[in-house]
């Protein structure tokens, strides 16, 4: 259930409660009390219409109505106030109940829509950006020649700074076994520029991708990156499933864990 749906439901509930309460009040107000206390039995049936008892009751009712006209108006206002207050409280209670049961929402970016524009690095209100590169290890080829780590025209497949594509050297290359290497992201250094993401997607399996890290994100009402994202890759997702990690993207049981 998204936010819009949630608000609509709350409003509907409030309006419905008001209508029901108002209807009950009006029915009660217009109800004529035909109960006769003579012998504790009501005589006001169609068989006795026009009988002395009935006439007496009618005239007594008319007199009472005249006498208590002022009182009824006051009661009406009081009851109306009470009802309005009750309806409002019921609405608020319903709203609160829905809010408790509904998920909160957080910002996340869809890695399959990302176009590596670099704006995640510069437009986040947090510095450095709360958007970081994450690594879907199950997609990685563990290549010696990593398109996300090495510059395309690197003079050697080494960890030398001049060969690294990342402007902040945030990717750590570790030897696993000949000829495989593992690549890990140092999130303290990562600025979310997506340069490695473009390299990995263009030349490799696309295992490197960006995600909003929720331990860093301040969850602004309007995400300042989403505002300038040219691919509309940012969206609100339920806080219970805050990540869209490649690889297990479609595995609903496990898509809330960062890589």
């Amino acid at each position, binding site marked *: 259930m998204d936010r819009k749906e949630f608000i609509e439901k709350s409003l509907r509930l409030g309006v419905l409660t008001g209508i029901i309460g108002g209807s009950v009040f009006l029915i009660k107000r217009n109800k004529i009390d035909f109960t006769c206390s003579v012998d504790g039995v009501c005589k006001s049936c169609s068989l006795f219409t026009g009988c002395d008892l009935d006439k007496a009751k009618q005239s007594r009712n008319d007199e009472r109505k005249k006498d208590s006209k002022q009182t009824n108006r006051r009661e009406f206002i009081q009851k109306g106030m009470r009802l309005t207050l009750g309806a409002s409280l019921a609405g608020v209670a319903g709203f609160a109940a829905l809010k408790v049961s509904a998920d909160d929402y957080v910002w996340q970016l869809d890695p399959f829509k990302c176009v590596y*524009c670099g*704006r995640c690095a*510069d437009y986040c209100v947090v510095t450095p950006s709360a958007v970081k590169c994450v690594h879907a290890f199950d997609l990685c*080829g563990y290549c010696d*020649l990593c398109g996300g780590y090495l510059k395309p025209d690197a003079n050697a497949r080494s960890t030398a700074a001049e060969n690294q594509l990342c402007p902040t050297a945030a990717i750590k290359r570790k030897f696993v076994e000949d000829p495989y290497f593992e690549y890990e992201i140092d999130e303290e250094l990562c600025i979310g520029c997506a340069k490695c993401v*473009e390299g990995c997607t263009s*030349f490799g399996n696309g295992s490197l991708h960006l995600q909003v890290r929720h331990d860093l994100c301040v969850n602004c009402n309007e995400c300042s990156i989403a505002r300038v994202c*040219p691919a*509309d890759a940012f969206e609100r997702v339920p806080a219970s499933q805050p990540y869209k990690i490649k690889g297990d993207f479609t595995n609903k049981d496990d898509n809330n864990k960062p890589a």
Partner: protein
Amino acid sequence: MKHRKLINTILIVMAIGIVIIVARDFVVNRSGKNIENPYAFDVSEYAKVDSSEIIYQEEKVLQLKVDEPKGIDFYNEAIYVIADSSLLKLNQQGQLLQEIQLGDEPTAIDAGPQVWLAFKNQIVCIDENGKELQRWPDFGPRSVVTSLAVSPEYVYVADAGNRLVYQFSRDGKLIREIGAKDEQKAVPGFIIPSPYFDVDLNEEGYLWAVDPGRHSLENFNADGSLRTSWTISSVKTEGFSGCCNPAHMAIMSEDKFVTSEKGIVRVKIYDQHGEYLGVVATANQFNEVSHAPDVCVSDDGKVILLDFDRKQVRLFNPKESD
């Protein structure tokens, strides 16, 4: 009074200035507007090809009415395409000659007098009418068969999952596994980072296998020892770049190689020693986000591509020399 007018004027000018700045910020920084990327990594630079290097031209496009094309081969003037769970036989004009339902989704094909098909981890041989002649037991859950090459004596099966080429007799007897790391035979072992692992046979019947993680093509003797290999690892047009290229390969007359690459999608030709000859199709002839096309060659030297994204069979002819 005079001061009051001055102050009002200044306030109005400031208000206008603020409105202009806010409006400009709103318009300029809106999504979709061109904001310069200070971290730009222009991959398209590497996709550019000098026109003099393009030695083929597109002759014909055959549109397929399928959901998911899987592989292509050429035999006896006919194009064989596997797609969805069918085998399609087309002539070069695009006329559908035959369609055989396979009951499962094939992953690789080798067309000849008999058609050999791979189904993820199984091999099936059918005759020209689709009658099943052989079905071999599967190679296990790790197996991902990506390519087949069939000689008169042997069937070579490229298994990307196990990083091996199996050499079978034609009746299904496993003779040997080729490509496992073996220092005695000088075999370095295949590096297969993704399920792109192609094999083919040259004119003499020797096996050539792509080693995509090394940007190599490796040639094996019948006993599984390494015969020769060539490697060109470079981001320039004449080389292979990325984690796993070439993704597909076919051998044409004079043992020339047609290679197809992913990442920067392009199709190129190399001579028998791995010398770069030229380009068949450049990246701008494919969709912006595209898969490496499967390749095969016709007897008259046409390069035939299976474009997975456009669902087309594309025929390329050598350009006539001036």
